[in-house]
């Protein structure tokens, strides 16, 4: 069954028949985690780097911010039976917008990825794959039967 993860949202699954997909990853980050032994994993679509500027929003929508979303993604997977040391983490997105003549002033995409990297480092986790930056939007898919992550961007499908 296909599950679509929207902006500031997350889905965890232990069902090998599930396909998790998120669309329109621009500056947002799509983050997938997958335990190949337990066959449990999840996907999050995260918008902004840090929740410190808007704690009320973070309380209401924790999946909006990298620093509140990432722990929830991992901990939810642990509750479903995943083991941290086995989890394969991949990320896509973090793009800069199309050139409007003013440049990428806020660098949201870049900052999203930086915060993600810092949190993974602090928590002793390495990325297994990433496709970030650039200007193109991405669609990200996680196949729960085998953990395969595929990306689609500008009509081209690739495996991450």
């Amino acid at each position, binding site marked *: 069954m296909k599950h679509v993860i929207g902006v500031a949202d997350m889905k965890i699954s232990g069902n090998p028949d599930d396909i998790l997909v998120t669309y329109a990853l621009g500056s947002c980050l799509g983050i997938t985690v997958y335990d190949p032994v337990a066959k449990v994993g999840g996907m999050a679509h995260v918008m902004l780097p840090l929740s410190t500027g808007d704690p009320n929003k973070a309380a209401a929508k924790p999946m909006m911010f990298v620093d509140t979303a*990432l722990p929830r993604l991992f901990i939810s997977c642990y509750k479903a039976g995943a083991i941290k040391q086995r989890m394969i983490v991949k990320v896509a997105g973090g793009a800069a917008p199309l050139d409007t003549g003013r440049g990428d002033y806020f660098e949201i995409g870049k900052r999203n990825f930086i915060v993600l990297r810092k949190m993974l480092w602090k928590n002793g986790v*390495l990325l297994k794959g990433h496709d970030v930056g650039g200007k193109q939007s991405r669609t990200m898919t996680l196949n729960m039967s085998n953990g395969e992550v595929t990306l689609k961007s500008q009509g081209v499908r690739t495996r991450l």
Partner: protein
Amino acid sequence: MALNILVVDDSSIMRAMIIKVLRISGLPCGEFYQAANGVEALKVIDENWIDMALVDINMPVMNGEELINRLRENPDTADLPIVVVSSEASETRIEILRRKGAEFIHKPFTPETVRETIIEMTGVSDEGSTENEDIRCGSLDF
């Protein structure tokens, strides 16, 4: 097969960072050894079984290049896998190091680059367990 790894860098912070990368990489790591310069490194290698060395170039007392020369001159260590981790920018100097059988990682580096380089050099797998106990210094978010 667990790898005993020597990290040679005059910065204790850099040594700690590299060791942390190795611990969380999933690579089959055994013991970690440290040295702040080439002279200390030669002593460690002489007194311990070392499977691989990650070496900085610019260090006091004895730099990385001289260390590599000494290791390659010794039949016991001529084939020791060496990864140079350095901010060295000269392609000529990097090529000289590669001709001595060393791989090269530029500083600043991503942890994944260190992992992939070691996998490529040694053929080991990164599907082993990670030592989470040693990472729990300070608070963790997950």
